[in-house]
């Protein structure tokens, strides 16, 4: 009889075999053991039976909730579906709605749930019921905690008895929770996180499932929590490792917007004729009460995807707009356009402001901007007066070329438009507007952003890159000559991007500077190596790319 140690070792070999990580020597050892001992062979068979039963438990559980979710069985049978008659639903046209197309055609992407499938799902489910009964130890007991409220912003619950705080455990089979206002972040025990926007009505059903009766929910599901499910009155979304948003309207119809990965959308109530689709990133669907699925445009910013209660940030997938930061905002649209900073004094003020005493050179020393926490400081670069300090820490722009140490205009969010004189355009697009924000800079000036401050405000995020377009704005040929300027992007004083001798004839260039957690200061510079004229440049759509940390 095998000893405990021998059984342990045999288990280890089998696990390595199953994972495909077994070496040739150990494969040979396993083979020898199995072939020389009936007991070892029996052990192998039992081990594999146990693993198979453990493996299939979740599929059975899903199948019991809704036969249509047993996707493995469905997939297997769909192959032979070609020969089976489908149940065709009529295509309905809506005249003035936002739906771009009706997706209920019998295309390869959209499968009908045929009679064959229905029989398959129902009967195969029935056949599983015996084992399911045996495995009901995993079914959640009558009431148990299945999720935790981990963050909230400006929350008001409809009932005082539901006044959950951060850290509160949420139970299943309790009753419908009504979030009247605000936003909560809930972490389910199996790993999925959801952001729920009030007003919303929802129930945590289990550690891997919630029911959304109304409102908006964004779900982020790591790979190991795959299978997380959101059920709505007329549909069910089964995650396949992804990020998605679900909106249930007052009439109980639903929208599903996929942002990453993919999910299975099952339309219709359990037991009714249903249809399903796999939805991939960038795709969105609406499910009507009739069970029809329709394609709709993806709304990138329709869902709050992350919240930071300390700073009150509600993140909808945007990145940090540095023009907005220059306008006194946090980078998410709360800043003021038409505000500017004097690069000589660091003063932040409304309006654009041309420099007084144009002929005089500037101080050319680094000036801290006191009013704006995310901006470290500004300066007028001139390589003749080294060192050119570009941060409050003393980082130096070693390669800074010589300039005449003068500038004309403040560094601004937006742009002073004097029709007929200047046009804030790159290519055909006019920047410095609400839809196309830009930082307008005149040679010679520089501005430094404090990345660590941004991290402090957004502790749940990683700053991964700085992205922008840069180029010369158009000029008035009567008043100006097309003298070139240089663009620089520095990180902690080190040049990470440069675009030199740029005139209005040059196409704008994309800046993409990757950032790491060690990077502290980001500096944007425009300078001219020749005598000063009116030389403007733009950092258009300037943004710090952020991603939620894992």
């Amino acid at each position, binding site marked *: 009889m095998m000893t*405990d140690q021998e*059984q*342990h*070792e045999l*288990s*280890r070999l*089998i*696990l*390595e*075999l*199953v*994972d*495909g*990580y*077994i070496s040739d020597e150990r*494969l040979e050892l396993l083979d020898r053991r*199995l*072939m020389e001992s009936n007991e070892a*062979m029996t*052990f*192998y*068979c*039992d*081990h*594999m*039976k*146990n*693993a*198979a*039963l*453990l*493996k*299939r*438990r*979740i599929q059975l559980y899903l199948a019991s909730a809704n036969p249509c979710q047993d996707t*493995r069985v469905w997939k*297997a*049978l769909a192959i*032979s579906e070609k020969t089976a008659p489908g149940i065709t639903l009529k295509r309905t046209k809506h005249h003035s709605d936002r739906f771009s197309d009706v997706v209920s055609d019998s295309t390869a992407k959209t499968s009908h749930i045929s*009679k064959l499938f229905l*029989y*398959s799902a129902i*009967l*195969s*489910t*029935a*056949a*599983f019921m*015996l*084992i399911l009964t*045996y*495995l*009901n*130890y995993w079914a959640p007991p009558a009431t148990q905690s299945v999720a935790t409220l981990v963050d909230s912003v400006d929350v008001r619950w409809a009932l005082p008895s539901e006044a959950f705080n951060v850290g509160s455990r949420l139970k299943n089979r309790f009753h419908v929770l009504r979030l009247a206002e605000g936003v909560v972040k809930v972490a389910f025990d*199996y790993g999925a996180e959801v952001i729920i926007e009030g007003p919303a009505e929802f129930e945590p059903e289990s550690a891997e499932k919630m029911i959304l009766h109304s409102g908006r929910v964004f779900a982020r599901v790591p*790979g*190991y*929590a*795959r*299978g997380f499910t959101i059920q709505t009155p007329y549909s069910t979304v089964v995650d396949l490792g992804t990020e998605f948003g679900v909106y249930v309207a007052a009439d109980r119809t639903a929208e599903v917007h996929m942002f990453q990965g993919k999910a299975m959308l099952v339309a219709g109530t359990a037991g009714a004729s249903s249809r399903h689709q796999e939805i991939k990133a960038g795709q969105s669907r609406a499910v009507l009460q009739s069970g029809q699925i329709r394609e709709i445009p993806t709304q990138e910013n329709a869902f709050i995807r992350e919240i930071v209660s300390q700073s009150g940030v509600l993140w909808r997938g945007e990145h940090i707009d540095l023009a907005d930061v220059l306008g006194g905002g946090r980078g998410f649209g709360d800043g003021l356009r038409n505000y500017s900073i004097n690069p000589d004094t660091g003063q932040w003020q409304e309006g654009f402001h041309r420099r007084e005493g144009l002929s005089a050179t500037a101080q050319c020393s680094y000036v801290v901007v006191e009013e704006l926490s995310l901006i470290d400081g500004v300066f007028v670069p001139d390589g003749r007066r080294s060192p050119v300090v570009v941060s409050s820490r003393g980082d130096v722009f070693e390669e800074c070329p010589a300039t005449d140490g003068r500038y004309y205009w403040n560094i601004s969010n937006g742009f002073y438009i004097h029709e007929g004189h200047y046009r804030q355009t790159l290519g055909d697009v006019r920047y410095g507007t609400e839809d196309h924000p830009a930082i307008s800079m005149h040679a010679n000036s520089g501005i430094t952003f404090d990345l660590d401050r941004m991290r402090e405000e957004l502790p749940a995020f990683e700053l991964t890159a700085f992205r922008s377009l840069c180029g010369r704005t158009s000029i008035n040929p009567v008043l100006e000559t097309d003298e070139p300027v240089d663009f620089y992007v520095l990180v902690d004083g080190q040049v990470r991007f440069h675009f030199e001798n740029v005139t209005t004839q040059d196409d704008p260039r994309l800046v993409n500077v990757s950032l790491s957690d060690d990077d502290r200061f980001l500096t944007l510079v425009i300078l001219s190596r020749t005598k000063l004229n009116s030389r403007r440049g733009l950092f258009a759509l300037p943004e710090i790319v952020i991603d939620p940390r894992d």
Partner: protein
Amino acid sequence: MDFRDSQRPVSRHELFFKLYGNCQNRLYVFLYMMVHNENDAEDLLQETVTSLWERFDKFRPDSNFTAWAMTIARRKAINFLKKNARSRPHLSDGFYQQIADLEIEEDDLSERAEALKHCLQRLREIDRRLLLMRYERNISMVKIAEIFGRSTNGIYHTMSRIHSVLQQCIHRLLTTGHSG
């Protein structure tokens, strides 16, 4: 209810899925033992059910559907193993022959599932969690090791121990009626 007792006519579809539903757990377990890989077993089960349906016209209602299904599954597994012998861990032909000759009974699986349920409850919470991650969540051992901040070798060691304990418990329960 046995569909043969029903007075209403039974469609070909219903008949197929009833018969298939009765044996698909056995088919999966058999394929998993043969090819010792979850994804490959799933793929082969898919191929098997497709073949069964395509040939269902030739199936005689009075013959043994499970035996017929197992024959097809066996053939598919053997072909798969031959075709992929060099690209995946391959044991000796004698081993696969022994597995191919096995009979897997539904009762055996049902009793094992019952014992498994009982024995899982006797495991430590952390051990149950590990099994759940590996088998329900399909997380690789390497990833599990990362999550727990342990070495891959250590996680293999732990998982081997859990399997051994589980198997001993199931064996005791099935043979003596007590888990010890």
